[in-house]
């Protein structure tokens, strides 16, 4: 049967090509929208998740607390949220110093420090450039650096020296990982347990944030649970409430609107294509009536002719989809890297199988709509006409 369908398409090559082209426009828009959504998600959403946090990131500003209270607050929050990632972040405005050598060196650099715990990638989409993004329990004492801080040539396993207090004796820490946080200035993450060794931290210059990640629709319920957890740890949140800090929702809303607009365009294009297919199909049946009634005389049943007419349109739909996907994949892999920013959290787009499925469905539906009536008319041709001149 495939051979018969292919022969039918080849018998009217120009007509098949023109029909395919008209279908291609609509299918290309469908495939393009789907594939572009994936790319936009990968690029723009990735960048937003790198900078502000993954979807559902919330932050609660807390008053100064001891490290033990802070860790307890994070742990209780983690449990109250059913295991959702939660951590404390203490950022200090009196930067610490680190050097790249195996021994303290008076030639030091200032680095913004975030005292925290857990796996950094649970909260931000940080590409891991080397080592591990997990601070673990803080022992042995480790640090994670961003790319800017490590650009002096630091690698996991290297030692850095930093005084934990102004004028204090430099303490040796081991680099356990290097991540890309999208910041141009150097930054490091150190275990929250070590922060308490700073003598003393200046409360006025210390900002403590509780960061947790929950599905955006559960943010309101989570806020209540988190406030209670923090209070249970002995930290009074006051009037502060958790606020959502990621921008993923806004980006995806904008994307949805554009998707809706382009989808409307695609539907219109496919409808026009279906009408064209209907017109051409009816004309084709009229031209081929002799062949079709002879096939009936030779034993074809009505269903055979229906499948033959509809099948050649569906075969064309498959070909059109393959071409459309090929064009989109080619564009993605050849052109996208030219305008994608270097580095960053985005991934190289993979083969858009979902786009292929959507495109095939759209093309098949168009082909079915456009060829159903011609196929039906083909089955109604009187077989006795095979013997009439």
């Amino acid at each position: 049967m495939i051979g018969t369908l292919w022969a039918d398409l080849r018998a009217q090559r120009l007509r098949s090509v023109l029909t395919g082209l008209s279908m291609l426009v609509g299918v290309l828009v469908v495939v393009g929208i789907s594939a572009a959504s994936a790319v936009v998600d990968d690029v723009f959403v990735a960048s937003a998740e790198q900078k502000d946090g993954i979807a559902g990131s919330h932050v609660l500003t807390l008053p100064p607390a001891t490290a033990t209270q802070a860790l307890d607050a994070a742990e209780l929050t983690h449990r109250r949220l059913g295991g959702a990632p939660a951590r404390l972040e203490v950022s200090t405005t009196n930067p610490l110093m680190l050097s790249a050598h195996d021994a303290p060196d008076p030639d030091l650099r200032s680095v913004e420090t975030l005292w925290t715990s857990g796996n950094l990638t649970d909260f931000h989409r940080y590409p891991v450039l080397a080592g591990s993004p997990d601070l673990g329990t803080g022992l042995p004492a480790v640090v994670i650096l961003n790319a800017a801080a490590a650009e002096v040539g630091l690698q996991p396993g290297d030692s850095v020296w930093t005084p934990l207090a102004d004028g204090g004796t430099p303490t040796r820490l081991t680099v356990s990982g290097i991540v890309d946080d999208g910041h141009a200035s150097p930054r490091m993450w150190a275990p929250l347990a070590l922060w308490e060794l700073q003598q003393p931290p200046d409360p006025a210059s210390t900002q403590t944030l509780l960061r947790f990640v929950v599905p955006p629709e559960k943010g309101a319920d989570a806020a209540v649970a988190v406030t209670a957890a923090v209070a249970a740890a002995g930290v009074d949140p006051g009037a502060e409430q958790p606020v959502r800090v990621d921008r993923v929702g806004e980006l995806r809303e904008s994307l949805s609107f554009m998707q809706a607009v382009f989808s409307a365009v695609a539907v219109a294009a496919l409808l026009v294509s279906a009408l064209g297919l209907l017109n051409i199909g009816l004309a084709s049946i009229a031209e081929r009536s002799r062949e079709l009634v002879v096939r009936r005389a030779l034993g074809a049943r009505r269903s055979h002719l229906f499948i033959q007419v509809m099948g050649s349109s569906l075969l064309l739909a498959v070909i059109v989809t393959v071409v459309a996907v090929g064009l989109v994949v080619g564009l993605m892999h050849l052109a996208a890297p030219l305008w994608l920013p270097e580095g960053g959290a985005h991934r190289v787009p993979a083969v858009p199988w979902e786009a292929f499925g959507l495109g095939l469905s759209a093309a098949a539906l168009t082909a079915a709509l456009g060829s159903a009536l011609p196929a039906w008319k083909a089955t109604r041709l009187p077989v006795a006409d095979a013997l009439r001149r």
Partner: protein
Amino acid sequence: MSVPVLELRGLSASFPSGQGRRTLFTDVDLTVGGGETAAILGRSGSGKTTLLTLLGLMQRPEHGTITLAGRDVSSLSDADAARLRNRHIGFVFQNYSLIPHLSVLDNVLVPATYAPRDVAGGRRGRVRRRAEDLLDAVGLGGRGQDLPLRLSGGEQQRVAIARALLLEPAVVLADEPTGALDEQTGARVLDMLVATARHEGRCLVVVTHDDAVAGVMDRVFRLGEGTLREEDRP
């Protein structure tokens, strides 16, 4: 007469005309056996084509019965009639009716497209070999990949004969098989058709207005004035 393959009993046909219907023929009886050849003669408008469409199960008779190899096929469904046509009836049309965009071989194989797999034996199976053998038998071996456009009228009709015989039908119906051919070519085609039918024991019914064609057949029937009468052969 050999064992009857095709039997018509009390067949009638009419067609709409003005306010009523005009009768083409009534109480037509016809019996043709395996290996027998029969011609149905009649002038234009006598109902030859209508009779052939009834014989070919392309329409149901208004009255009467049609029996094919002992089975009453008068009131089959459209699908069953198609199956029976495919398996037991071969057609040769006046204008060859080859499919122009298919090769000669693929034209011969068209009936196999609609046959059950155990009959067709697959495109690359037994039936393909039979198609090639038939093309050899009609003198067109080696022309299988040509398109019909490159064949003469006589060659196209020979392809049509091969197509009609592909699935070894019990009955072959030919509608003016030499009508579009010159006298010499027509005679060759007719001889081939008759010889094959007799040799393979098939029942051949030819509809024609040409007495010369009828003269080659075992039996001649004349359709006229609403009846079918067998003519005496010398």
